[in-house]
């Protein structure tokens, strides 16, 4: 709301811009959050790269709007699974079915690297996220709104090179959010950030997820992050789902609480055991 006030006092056409944002806000509130997400069902999913079978039969159902974290040791296939869900790669066998046929802008990915165009201003970078709707009349207003949402409304005319790592990743988040996706896939988006920035980014992710009600699939190697954010944590080992843990704790969750630590310890224990002996899988 602060941002809206700021626009009213600055800007050449203050009234119109504030109106645009208010309108976008209404549109968003009008849509039922639970309906925003998209359920997905995965059956017998396999993926091989040459002789190397990375995913060996994944069966999974994710209800609409759920926040799922996928953890596992490096090379376990978690990023491959995410790329398949996002449609970046084709599965070798099996398939992924969504609750309804998604449009291209319904599924968005956020990578570990921000992947911003260095030669485009922050606002144009966010507009890229609109896909085919880039040419529409309200494109700029929507991009501005997404930037405000991630707290970077005042950086719209900056070049990406002057932003910090965390700010770049927030621009990438705004770009992913601007088309109002129904599923957002995160491929270790906070992996390259320092500890404090990570925590504030986690809070931001949780907030936009709760606001917008999209389904979130987060691949991470940080188990603490997974249990802090997700409704459900999937542990992947050797290309299969080894464990499916429901995190039934109220939000906002307090970092470092005993329950979170216990869950984290349990999952970590499993991950570490898996490295020594996989015969029981």
């Amino acid at each position: 709301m602060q941002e809206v006030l700021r626009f009213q006092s600055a800007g050449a056409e203050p009234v119109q811009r504030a109106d645009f944002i208010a309108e976008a806000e209404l549109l968003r509130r009008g849509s039922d959050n639970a309906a925003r997400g998209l359920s997905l069902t995965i059956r017998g999913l396999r993926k091989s790269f040459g002789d190397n079978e990375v995913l060996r039969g994944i069966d999974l159902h994710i209800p609409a709007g759920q926040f799922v974290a996928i953890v596992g040791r490096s090379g376990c296939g978690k990023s491959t699974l995410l790329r398949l869900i996002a449609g970046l790669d084709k599965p070798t066998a099996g398939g992924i079915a969504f609750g309804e046929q998604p449009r291209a802008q319904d599924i968005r990915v956020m990578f570990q690297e921000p992947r911003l165009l260095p030669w485009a201003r922050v606002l144009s970078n966010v507009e890229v996220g609109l896909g085919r709707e880039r040419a529409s009349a309200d494109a700029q207003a929507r991009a501005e709104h997404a930037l405000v949402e991630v707290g970077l409304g005042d950086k719209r005319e900056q070049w990406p090179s002057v932003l910090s790592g965390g700010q770049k990743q927030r621009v990438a988040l705004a770009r992913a959010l601007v088309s109002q996706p129904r599923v957002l896939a995160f491929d270790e988006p906070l992996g390259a950030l320092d500890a404090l920035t990570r925590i504030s980014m986690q809070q931001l992710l949780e907030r936009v997820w709760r606001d917008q009600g999209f389904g979130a699939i987060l691949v991470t190697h940080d188990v603490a992050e997974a249990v802090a954010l997700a409704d459900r944590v999937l542990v992947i080992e050797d290309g299969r789902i080894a464990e499916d843990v429901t995190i039934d704790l109220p939000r906002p969750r307090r970092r470092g609480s005993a329950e979170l630590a216990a869950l984290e310890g349990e999952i970590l224990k499993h991950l570490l055991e898996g490295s020594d002996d996989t015969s029981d899988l």
Partner: protein
Amino acid sequence: MSLIDSLPRVSAPKLPKVDGLIPWIVPLAIILVWQLACVTGFVPSRVLPAPTDVALAGWKLLLSGELVRNIWVSFWRASIGFLIGGGIGFAFGLANGLSQLSAKLTDTTLQMVRNIPHLALIPLVILWFGIDESAKLFLVALGVFFPIYLNTLHGIRTVDPQLIEMGRIYGMTDGELFRRVIFPGALPSIFVGLRFALGIMWLTLIVAETIAASSGLGYMAMQAREFMLIDVVVLSILIYALLGKLADSASRALERLTLSWHPAFQKK
């Protein structure tokens, strides 16, 4: 008050006007030393005329209209040759950077041709074209072709594949992908090629005009040599230096204009 405060400041605030003049200190100093050496007789005027004599010769040629005509002819040759060779080089660079088939078909051939020094073709070019305009244009075009071709190709091939993937994910068409991702990404490298090409452009033109021409700066210099007009010879050389500097400044200005996003071009 400490001792340090009482000391004079080492880093005096710079005047912005003076800052722009710094690059010209050395050339001006050289001219000054040159003038002194000539006036004192340390360098005989048959070896090197004084800068004032050169300026005088320039003034005379300017009045007769000869200087302007010759500069114009050289400038015209340089730019037309550059546009033709640079245009073809850029087109091949784009084609081979974007299409595997095109690269397979032509790259090997171009790499072979590249290893022939283009000035070695002068006898052949004279046989083909005589000392006509087309001979000079051909040589300049051939000379600028390769730096533009190689750097355009390199620029396109080294565009961050992660950005290209990002563009595809966000539904960019091939045309948009080129306009918004590939071309801007290749631009810094294309500019490197452009500046190399500008250097080669002048070099080629000087040689071509010296050997086979009936007008232009190189011709003017050769004529002057025939008549022992050493001041005109030196004048031509100085004009070449100035034109080269001008071309370089123009490409730098273009760089600053189009690469303002690049950290290296951002003003503090």
